């Protein structure tokens, strides 16, 4: 599916994962190339999390092959995967709210100066790099000592992405980065994903929102109940098809039945009201009535929420 001759950055072939007797993933294949965004879609429980945990080295596949850069990969921990350039930005962001931005940015990989036991954390360098890296992503922060907890959700995601990019990630795995964000903020994060792609990274973007996936994705792999519906290039699939496939064909059909049922109820209501109105009209023509027929009152009461509002005197 790639137009280049080089091997994909990440290539998993027929991977399965079992937890005891539970089949979490069955026969999944997917790949991502440098400078591509692969969207991994699926509803809750589809197996997205299990797959990214395999990709990021948390779990090992029970069956199948996992190739990184064309070579067989056996990661025993997230640190292994990180060291070859697979950076995962988890939903919980791996950020410490009470710590400053630059301290968070370099946590675990602090730049030092000096030697031996006297090596110091080079705060100045950390501040400068963090400021520059964030500026590249269009985030302006005046003080690097500002606690990360004071940033918005989108800014925090962006700091996490900037950090992964700075530390030489070749593949960026983003676990539902837009899930808890507002519309605007999700847009900001999508823009950073595009920037990461433009800088030549392979991005695996996990989401259950096709409206976030479609504009940014080059390829889409759809998971459902532990197995894959396959991988589609953007040209092969429309947004509607993507949405339909994600929800699962059956489920959607059921939903449309339900919706039709609603429509039917609406029709019944209309018919009942029309019937009552006709009766009322007929009776009103014959005699002057002070009292509305009970049938009308009943109908009005039953379908009150579907009628236009009345004015003060009960006229519509």
């Amino acid at each position, binding site marked *: 599916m790639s137009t280049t001759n080089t091997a994909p950055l990440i290539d998993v072939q027929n991977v399965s994962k079992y937890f005891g007797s539970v089949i979490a993933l069955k026969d999944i294949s997917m790949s991502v190339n440098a400078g591509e965004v692969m969207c991994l879609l699926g509803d809750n429980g589809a197996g997205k999390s299990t797959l990214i945990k395999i990709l990021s080295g948390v779990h090992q596949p029970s069956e199948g092959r996992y190739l990184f850069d064309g070579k067989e990969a056996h990661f025993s921990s997230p640190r292994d995967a990180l060291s070859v350039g697979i950076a995962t930005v988890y939903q919980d962001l791996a950020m410490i709210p009470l710590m400053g931005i630059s301290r968070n940015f370099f946590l*675990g990989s602090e730049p030092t100066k000096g030697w031996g036991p006297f090596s110091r*954390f080079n705060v100045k360098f950390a501040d400068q790099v963090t400021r520059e890296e964030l500026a590249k992503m269009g985030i302006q922060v005046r003080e690097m000592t500002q*606690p990360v907890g*004071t940033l918005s959700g989108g800014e925090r995601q962006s700091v996490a992405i900037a950090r992964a990019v700075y530390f030489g990630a070749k593949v960026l795995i983003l676990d539902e980065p837009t899930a808890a964000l507002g519309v605007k903020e999700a847009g900001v994060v999508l823009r950073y994903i595009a920037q990461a792609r433009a800088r030549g990274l392979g991005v695996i973007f996990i989401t259950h929102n096709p409206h976030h996936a479609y504009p940014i994705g080059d390829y889409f792999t759809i998971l459902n109940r532990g197995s894959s519906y396959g991988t589609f290039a953007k040209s092969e699939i429309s947004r509607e098809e993507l949405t339909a496939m994600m929800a699962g064909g059956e489920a959607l059909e059921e939903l449309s039945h339900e919706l039709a049922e609603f429509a039917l109820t609406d029709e019944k209501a209309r018919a009942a009201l029309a019937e009552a109105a006709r009766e009322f009209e007929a009776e009103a023509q014959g005699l002057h009535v002070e009292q509305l027929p009970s049938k009308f009152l009943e109908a009005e009461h039953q379908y009150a929420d579907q009628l236009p509002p009345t004015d003060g005197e009960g006229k519509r």
Partner: protein
Amino acid sequence: MSVITSERMLRVNPLRRLLVRPEIGAVAGSIAVWIFFAIVAGSSGFVSSRGASSYLSVSAELAILAVPVALLMIGGEFDLSVGSTVGATGMIIAILSAQFGWNIWASFVAALIFAVLIGIMNGYLVMRTRLPSFIVTLGTAYILFGVTSGVTSLVTGLTVVNGLDQAPGYSSAHAIFATALGGGQQFPIEIIWALALVALATWLLLGTSFGNWIFGVGGDANAARNIGVPVTRVKILLFIGTAVCACLLAIIQDVTFTNADVLRGQGSEFYAIVAAVVGGVLLTGGYGSAIGAMFGALAFGMVEEGIVFAGVNAEWYKAVIGIILLLAVLLNSYVRKLAMEARR
């Protein structure tokens, strides 16, 4: 490079930036306590150098415990066994040197090794069982105290072991751990030890990678682990730190009093936590400073000695400590709230 600014950011008042330091509560508390006793007990010598010497001595001994405890608490754990470690290591030194005639320096080394093992045990138990360190170290505290008392009465038949000044090497140990400095009014050398410890802890916390890891593991151990911080190693090292400092205090007290008491250190684990919390350390971890813990210890020492200078029954001091603790915690939580919104 030019400073990047955004229209969404207001200029921050420099005074307000000073106010959001973690140690501000303890500094303000120390000043308030000093002024209070200067008024109440100024005539009986609280403001004199004699008064300063007495409360600085108490504060220094507490700071030697409170500073490593503050680091551990910033790292997200408690150590309630520091008091028992003071008693145990003090007694190890006394039994080896006063009873068996070891050179006192050899006893110090033995006690330090024992302290390191206690720290490793605490840290390993906490990390391995994933139980709250509050409970785990409470358990080791009782075990340590019980074993110390039992072994001491088995070996010596007493609970206080005297005669350390007869041990070989005592005079050099006295010069380093218990001598008094200054011309007119004498100040004990433990003040220097405490200040050196504060400087070391501050450098560690703010100037090294390890310090960054301490904040990280205390703020969110899972997040820190995900991004490559060796959480278990950091926490075990912090537990070793509290135990080693407890041993340092035991050495200072042994050499100063020339004896060891199994009861020594009992209760000081809570005083150390109080000093750290008054000093702005967050109980849930991830926030605080060594300088704050030092000021917490200073306020504590001034209350304990100031009450004596004021001529009030010394038992009242715990009530005052309680009030200061509550006020400082209130102030600190307010300051932290400011810190989290100060630069929005």
